[in-house]
């Protein structure tokens, strides 16, 4: 998911406003130390609009996972301490700032701080910018939350991995759930932010709908700017349609503002809202979200996660530490770190328990399967560098008796049902009608 931070655009925008009114870095081949701690860079939004809903839960999840892994307290199959016995020493970096700044910070992490690996990045823009630098520096990098499918579809990468499925899964899952609820859907509309995440989400949703319900037509296609906050005109436009459903990949303040504003004007009484990233707002807004709203969590995370020992443990330690339930960015970070540990331990085992070199870890990571707190992750696409997993969607219900936000009618779609196969790009798969999708 690409997000623009405040500082990222501050200088550019203010400078632009003032104008209007005033009229060879050597590649560093990393090797893991043998008996020394493993330095791990953790990059996430610590300030700015994306910090609260995404960056901080991701950072907090990293804090817990690293602490518990070092103590050997994570349940099986991760009960061995650290990374193949080596203590993990994290260095936290704020993702806020321009994309150019993030590339500089990444270089600093690798070349100045000497991290052995980096787990991070919420913004798709930052992921796209950091990936070639990671390749240049031969720096093992695991993207934890960015959603753009383009990372591994444009060019094969060796040192970059993403244990979190990409955004196509969210849109395909949403389309399948919508058509389960509204099998005779005649028309639908969408409101998505006017940048990579919003545009890609809407494009994939429309493509999936065309494949699954060719007769359903698009009424309104709205793309307000990121962080617009005010959606009065867009809500009016949606009120003038006959759409049964309105798709939105909104997140953060825009999502909450839109929910409040459209609720006050009665839009949900005319159209069922579909929020693919709605889970991050449901606890904060509670009863402000109308019952029946379709909610996604970019995977089977949070309240839609299965009741496994690993998930129960993760939720427990997270809630004990931070007095709030982990939302999907926390799950994304946890599964990314567990993916790294799985690969690291596997590489070490192949060397008879010795600390592996980074290239050994990379080799072990490719195509690996491992358990996350909410689902099994298979690094099945992107030449073994991109994970796929199941996804779940459900309908919101506010439990008035307990004053609690709940998800009901949860449907879990298998990974092969909502993700493209290894030999196709997302767009090609969607345009071909999602051939080979296995949904049973």
């Amino acid at each position, binding site marked *: 998911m690409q997000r623009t931070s405040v500082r990222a655009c501050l200088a550019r925008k*203010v400078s632009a406003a003032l104008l209007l009114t005033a009229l060879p870095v050597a590649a560093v081949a990393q090797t893991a130390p043998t008996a020394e701690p493993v330095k791990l860079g953790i990059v996430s939004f610590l300030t700015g609009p994306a910090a609260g809903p995404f960056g901080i839960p991701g950072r907090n999840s990293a804090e817990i996972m690293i602490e518990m892994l070092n103590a050997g307290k994570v349940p099986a199959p991760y009960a061995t301490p650290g990374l193949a016995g080596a203590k993990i020493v994290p260095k936290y970096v704020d993702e806020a700032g321009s994309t150019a700044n993030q590339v500089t910070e990444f270089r600093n992490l690798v070349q100045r701080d000497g991290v052995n690996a980096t787990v991070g990045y919420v913004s798709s823009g930052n992921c796209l910018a950091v990936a070639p630098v990671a390749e240049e520096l031969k720096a093992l990098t695991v993207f934890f939350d960015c959603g753009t499918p383009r990372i591994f579809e444009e060019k094969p990468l060796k040192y970059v991995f993403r244990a979190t499925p990409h955004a196509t899964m969210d849109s395909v899952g949403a389309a399948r759930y919508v058509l389960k609820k509204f099998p005779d859907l005649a028309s639908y509309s969408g409101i998505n932010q006017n940048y990579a995440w919003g545009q890609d989400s809407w494009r994939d949703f429309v493509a999936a709908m065309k494949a699954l319900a060719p007769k359903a037509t698009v009424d309104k296609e*709205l793309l307000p700017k990121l962080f617009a906050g005010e959606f009065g005109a867009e809500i*009016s*436009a949606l009120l*003038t349609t006959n759409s049964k459903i309105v798709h939105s990949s909104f997140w953060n303040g825009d999502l909450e*503002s839109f929910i409040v504003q459209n609720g006050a004007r009665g839009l949900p009484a005319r159209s069922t809202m579909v929020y693919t990233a709605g889970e991050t707002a449901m606890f904060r807004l509670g009863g402000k979200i109308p019952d029946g709203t379709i909610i996604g969590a970019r995977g089977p995370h949070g309240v839609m996660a299965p009741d496994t020992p690993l998930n129960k443990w993760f939720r427990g330690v997270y809630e004990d530490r931070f007095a709030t339930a982990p939302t999907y960015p926390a799950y994304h970070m946890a599964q990314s770190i567990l993916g790294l540990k799985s690969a690291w331990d596997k590489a070490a085992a192949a060397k008879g328990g010795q600390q592996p070199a980074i290239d050994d870890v990379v080799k072990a990571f490719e195509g690996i399967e491992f358990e996350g707190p909410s689902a099994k992750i298979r690094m099945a696409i992107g030449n073994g560098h991109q994970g796929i997993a199941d996804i779940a969607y459900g309908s919101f219900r506010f439990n008035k008796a307990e004053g609690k936000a709940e998800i009901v009618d949860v449907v879990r779609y298998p990974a092969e049902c909502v993700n493209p196969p290894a030999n196709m790009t997302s767009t090609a798969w969607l345009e071909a009608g999602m051939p080979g999708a296995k949904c049973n």
Partner: protein
Amino acid sequence: MITVIAIVTDGLVYAAWLFVVAIGLTLIFGVMKILNVAHGAFYAFGAYAAATAIGLYFDRGWPVAGGYLAIATAAIAIGLVMGYILERVFLRRVYGRDEVVVVLITYALFLILEDVLILIWGTDGRSAYQPYTEAGSFTVGGLPLSVYDIGLVGFAGLLAIAASYTIKKTTFGRLLTAVIYDRETAAAFGVDVSRVYTVTFLVGAVLGALGGALTAPKISVTPGLGVEVIVLAFAVVAIGGMGSMEGALVGALIVGLFRAGAVHLIPQLELFSIYAVMALVLVFRPQGLFSRAQPRKI
């Protein structure tokens, strides 16, 4: 027909919001010749202060009507405090310096205040929706409209009338006009320019904070709020003419109606429409629509 109603009402609501935000900016520029980038910080602090005040107020189960008073009180209080500190501690020391220097100082203050805001309120968003949702809605031509939004249009209209009356009919307004035309001459005639500056800056700061406070019930109040707003406010002021109250009103109306028209008719051009209309105006009137003629000094 419903589309026409929607374009007009949406345009007016957006224009009202823009006007409330931009009027303080244009006032400060008109009188003090300061392009106040920190105006975005007044807006953001106003929004946070209002969100906090609304939270405290409604947590006690007090009547809804008083919530609107809480918004106004929070905005006035935070605007006065911030305006006073910034004017006395920073700006007073640079009056008479090159305008670019003063702009850079307000830009620096804006950046600092963005971080101060995070230190005070943290990184999590804040919600204070009660005044907006409790106000209810009504229907015009089949289109549901928010009472709060229409109330905002009324408030902006009253603000425009009050500003016009103050400038044209009151003693302070005449003093203000004298300082706007020529600070040195006004001072030579005994006008306490320093006092006029302080009062102007305080009023501008309160208006900026009020813009944020009135917006707070509609949105999730998050860090970075002031960045987007300051850019839009500059666009409105540029269209209307720097320092012109009438210009701010007309600029806000133009931007509001063009944007609403774009959203309903060509949604892909929403953002483009705002800046296209600004560019168009500036091509023919580089000084803005209502910029007054500058007397030549000998």
